[in-house]
């Protein structure tokens, strides 16, 4: 092999190695990250509520995914009017409690699923956005394989991620990169009232294996985690509060990022 060709090959190799880091976002949950090797940014991801009662959990999971994919840019949340009536409005204070900055969110209400898809098609070409969440309630003819393929192409073209949140619907054929089926997971018996905790099944993964994990959303660093073994948080703080005082500035700094 001649020298330039060799150089080119090695460059390509190094590019390949570094590429996943550019285009993929780790979830933060070790088990899921090992299987997924990061969530691809330029792609469509689907989140289904396992049962009717899991719509809030699925919304939380979708919000978490979108937050990871956004990386600080704005997020457009499109939802059907009826879905808001049925499952409740997206709550600004609730997002804040999850560590998602409310001013970064733009909400759009539409009447029909096809309006939502149309708006999403437009929004996915807006490179100022980080991600678009499309919340659709029930089964719709408009939401077929072609429609998801169109969304997938749009994400690949302009690099804005799409999260399709399906409430009250059965999983159907689609072109999505991943599909998650989410239900609420109970808190450990010793706790009072738990963190946002999901029983998430990765039911489809175009580039790898599937799996099922219990994940907990950490609002402080905005990522998913394995549920803490210790029911009192990651580490029991000393009663005198010395550790807490020491860790303040550092934690603040992480917040700002």
């Amino acid at each position, binding site marked *: 092999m001649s020298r330039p060709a060799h150089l080119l090959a090695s460059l390509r190799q190094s590019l390949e190695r570094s590429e996943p880091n550019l285009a993929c976002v780790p979830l933060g949950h070790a088990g899921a990250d090992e299987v997924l090797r990061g969530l691809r940014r330029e792609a469509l991801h689907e989140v289904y509520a396992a049962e009717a*009662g*899991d*719509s*809030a*959990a699925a*919304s*939380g*999971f979708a*919000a978490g995914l979108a937050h990871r994919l956004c990386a600080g*840019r*704005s997020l457009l949340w499109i939802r059907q009017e009826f879905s*808001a*009536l049925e*499952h*409740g*409005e*997206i*709550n*600004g*204070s*609730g*997002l*804040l*409690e*999850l560590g998602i*900055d*409310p*001013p970064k*969110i*733009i*909400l*759009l*209400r539409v009447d029909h699923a096809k*309006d939502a898809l*149309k*708006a999403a098609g*437009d*929004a996915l070409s*807006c*490179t*100022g*956005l980080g991600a678009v969440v499309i919340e659709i309630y029930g089964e719709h003819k408009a939401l077929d394989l072609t429609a998801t393929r169109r969304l997938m192409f749009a994400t690949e073209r302009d690099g804005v991620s799409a999260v399709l949140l399906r409430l009250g619907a059965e999983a159907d054929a689609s072109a999505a990169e991943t599909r998650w089926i989410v*239900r*609420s*997971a*109970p*808190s450990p018996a010793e*706790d*009072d*009232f*738990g*963190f*946002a*905790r*999901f*029983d998430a099944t990765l039911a489809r993964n175009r580039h790898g294996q599937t799996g099922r994990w219990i994940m907990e*959303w950490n*609002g*402080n660093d905005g990522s998913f985690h394995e549920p803490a073994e210790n029911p009192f948080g990651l580490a029991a703080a000393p009663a005198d509060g010395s550790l807490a005082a020491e860790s303040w500035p550092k*934690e603040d700094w992480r917040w700002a990022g």
Partner: protein
Amino acid sequence: MRRKAGPKKIGDGPDKPLVVSIKNDNALRIYAADRQAARLGLKSGMALADARAMVPVLDVAESDLPSDRALLEKIADWCDRFTPLVALDEPHGLLLDVTGVDHLFGGERALCETVHMKLSRQGFIVQCAMAGTAVAARALSHYAPGTIALPGKEDEAIANLPVAALQLDGGIAHSLRRAGLKTIGQVAARKRNELTARFGKEMVGHLDHALGHSEEPVSPRRPLPDFMAEHRFAEPLTVQDAILASLKMLAETLGEVLEKHGRGAREMTAVFFRADGAVRRLCVQTGAPTRDAAIIARLFRERLDSLADPLDPGFGFDLIRLEASCAENQTEETPSFEADARAARDVAFLVDRLAARFGAQRVQRFQPQDTHIPEAAAVAVPAQYAGPTKTAWHMQRGKDDPPRRPLRLLAKPEPIEDVMALAPDSPPKRFKWRQVRHSIAHAEGPERIAMEWWRHQEQMPTRDYFRVEDEEGRRFWLYREGLYAETREPKWFVHGVFA
């Protein structure tokens, strides 16, 4: 120089004499009479029974004032093509402020004739006149149609009109006639202080308006746009692409004007004048002042695409006008290459597009509210109007604590049944919501939220909020309305669901 034209419609006549009746003080009276009836001596205000006695073959139609008004509004819409300043002069007249526009139509005489001819062709009987003030134009259009008073010579033009032309209250006109003053010229020749002493200041003011000595402001039907540009087409446009192209050219013209004035528009209205007289207005708004023709054209395309009843060109549009309102100062924009600023601009443009397509109320942003009432704190406002506020977001939970506010908040708290809870402050043990029973495994609370007494008229009960988790891990935000001390049987509600 300010000129006004007042076209006047009376109605069209069939074969039999026709009068329109109106019920006035429990008696049917004539509201309007057509030419033939007028020739037979029927006048408005006459009792209908008398009229029937005088003219046995009489067609009588009942008056329909709302339809009359609607028709007048439509004619006014049509007249918008001559000037943006059109005012209704009810019941039968329109006032057009044609200051500075007459040259577009070949002069004052030609403008007057155009209005007359085009309205007559639509089947109206029209009387036009033009003068420097609204009152003079109105008097001339009623009593000397076709007159165009020379600038500053209104007093001469109306001198020979009867005093009735002043349209004063009935009593005053009568008194003037009894005093021997039959024409406006005779009244005008009297000393002002005499007239004021006898008839009051108002009458003298009105007289001065009529004589062109002072001016009465005309209130236009719509606020005047700050800037506008228009295209007239010899061959009416019917193709949507051509319409859009024309809008884009108008936006470019308007953009140049706005730039010259250092302004940008927050609201743009496109007015489509159909060849057959129908007029349609479409409006788009932007979050930030803009004068970029490409943006404006794109917003109109979105708006046109989303119309529930599409823009029907019929036989085509012969005039398209673009108006810019709410023009705000916009400093010369330096193209910014900073990624953040570019992203913000991209997002603002997206918001405008979505608002044009789906309506401004449907594109929202969260804005922190200075209240602790959960449903009021969660208000999202239209994104185009959301600006920076002094109120800051305030996290409820402590660090490393679970969320204290739900991700999804029900628009209206829903009552729950079969609640089993121990008084006074215990969380429920179980409840039933939307036909599903939930047994509670974990609970946290109460968080007591008193209603803000300064906002509500009547006393609102205090709420005790609980965060509960059922055995399947579903997390709810419940509250009990009223303390046990306040009410005997407090009601329970679910207000939100946690992720």
